[in-house]
């Protein structure tokens, strides 16, 4: 068990190095002279030159890479090229809202998806199954921004008058909760479909197995056969799927945050790219990549906790 986790941690080191290298190349590949970009187009040549020395751009590339790695491990991501604030400070302010949004969307969409998928599997071939599968194929095909725009239009403006701009404060306050509803609803809508599909095929697979037949033969109620013997085993692949969906969810979060002006990393990175604020963009992309690695790590560990066979 512990060794599985350690193995998994060791495996993520090369990926981590890859991500850091990627972040370094990102700024190297930006067209034009970074010193000139930082100094602004109207800066005098000697100012640019001084800045170049200060930024270490006159050093050989390997030395620059080493300095970059040193800065990364000490948590120094530089300053924003636009606001001149510390990038780490901007990221620290944005990371909370993003995590909050993702958790809020998963808390309703994953249980709903699992429930829908189980129901479809149990009533296989019936009208219920077909309806649920149709809904989930439609859900997989919906552009996330469409869901968001519809939520703004109908739930935000026409019917419920829910707020759709920004974050209303901490989650435990009334206003904070109200502001959370529409973004969490839109982002979760794209997750229900894949989870339902995966749960359905996984439950169907498990219900065919011998131990389920034994449970039925023992005269257990259908309810306990499905919930205790079927669903419990079927959830293992679903957990992996949620890990695989993390990238998809990340993309959804970027769009959702932009639509609802949610002050998270997604909105930060889009704004930074559109205003050529390369240091902030680099920092935000690194945070996203690290978050993605962390989610997959957690999923793998969860997987080994859920499936005793993996524990060895």
């Amino acid at each position, binding site marked *: 068990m512990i060794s599985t986790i350690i193995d998994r941690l060791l495996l993520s080191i090369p990926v981590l190095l890859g991500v850091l290298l990627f972040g370094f190349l990102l700024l190297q590949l930006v067209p034009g002279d970074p010193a000139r970009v930082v100094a602004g187009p109207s800066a005098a040549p000697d100012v640019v030159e001084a800045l170049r020395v200060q930024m270490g751009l006159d050093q050989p590339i390997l030395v620059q890479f080493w300095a970059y790695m040193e800065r990364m491990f000490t948590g120094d991501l530089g300053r924003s090229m636009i606001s001149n604030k510390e990038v780490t400070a901007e990221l620290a302010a944005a990371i909370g809202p993003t995590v909050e949004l993702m958790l809020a969307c998963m808390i309703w969409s994953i249980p709903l998806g699992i429930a829908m998928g189980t129901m479809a599997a149990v009533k296989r071939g019936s009208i219920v199954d077909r309806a649920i599968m149709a809904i989930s194929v439609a859900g997989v095909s919906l*552009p996330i921004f469409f869901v968001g725009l519809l939520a703004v*239009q109908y739930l935000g403006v026409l019917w419920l008058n829910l707020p759709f701009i920004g974050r209303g404060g901490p989650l435990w306050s009334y206003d904070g909760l109200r502001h959370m509803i529409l973004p969490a609803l839109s982002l979760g809508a794209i997750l229900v479909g894949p989870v339902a599909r995966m749960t359905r*095929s996984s439950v169907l697979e498990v219900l065919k197995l011998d131990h389920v037949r034994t449970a039925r033969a023992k005269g257990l109620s259908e309810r306990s056969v499905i919930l205790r013997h079927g669903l419990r085993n079927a959830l293992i692949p679903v957990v992996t799927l949620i890990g695989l969906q993390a990238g998809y969810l990340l993309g959804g979060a970027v769009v959702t945050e932009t639509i609802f002006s949610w002050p998270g990393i997604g909105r930060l990175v889009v704004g930074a790219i559109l205003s050529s604020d390369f240091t902030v963009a680099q920092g935000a992309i690194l945070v996203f990549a690290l978050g993605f690695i962390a989610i997959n790590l957690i999923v793998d560990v969860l997987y080994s906790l859920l499936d005793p066979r993996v524990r060895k």
Partner: protein
Amino acid sequence: MTMAATETPEPKTETASAATPAAKPEDAPPPRRASWGRRLMRDRAAVAALGTLAIICLAALFAPLLATHDPYVNTRSVMTPPAWQTGGDIAYLLGTDGQGRDIFSRLLYGARLTLLIGLISVGLGGFVGSMIGLLSAFYPKIDAWLMRFMDMLLSFPAILLGLALVAVMGQGAVPVIIALAISSVPDCARIARGIASGVMKMEFIEAGRAVGLSDAALFRRYLLRNCISSIMIFISLRFGQVILIGAALSFLGLGARPPLAELGMMASQGRDFLLFAPHIAVIPSVAIFVIVLAANVAGDALRDVLDPRLQT
């Protein structure tokens, strides 16, 4: 012996029985392969999806002939609703957008670009990915290396690659295509490798080696030909996803640049007029939804008919 074989029905031939009412014992061909087209045609949803896709592709292809207006020219009738709504104008079938451009014509041109971005990136990524997968099944020596590398690529979700490339290269369709193509590579490589290593275990590969075929001939004539259809199905399943991510990037303002029309971008342009003229955002969003839905339904049906092994 042969009689007994004909009497026991093959498990997978429930629907093929009509096509081959009485299989002759001496030359019983595998009936599954022979009738896949007919089985596909019996799936009404699949037929509808394929028909829709064909119509959309043709409409996009012949956009210059079908367009009723110049998609890039502003007119004075701003925000005209679709023709069937009050205040609509029959000259502008789907109404006009915030700058008075005809939405129907823009939709045709936008679908063209959206489909093109999807096709090029899936084609490119699918080709490179399946080559990597096939090669790593063919040459076990490089297998571990290539697959490790694919695992690393897999830890960069498409949206992240897209954001990073756009940050470096600036907004445009090209970085989006590159990002979508790269993110399709590891998935396709894994699937192709799985399919190909099954084929590599077949006797005819060994037979080919035994008669002294060169590696190139063995690869091309034996391995590739036996894998290609399964791989193509998987690639077609990716098409919808790729279009969705591409549209999301365009929606964020990171894809194709404004004088061009692209469906995701059209939806984001309509965002500002959501309250007064919702059709500007809704029509292109629905178009993306229909394209992706049709692609997903058709891909699923194709997979079920041609290659049930790939079912998830």
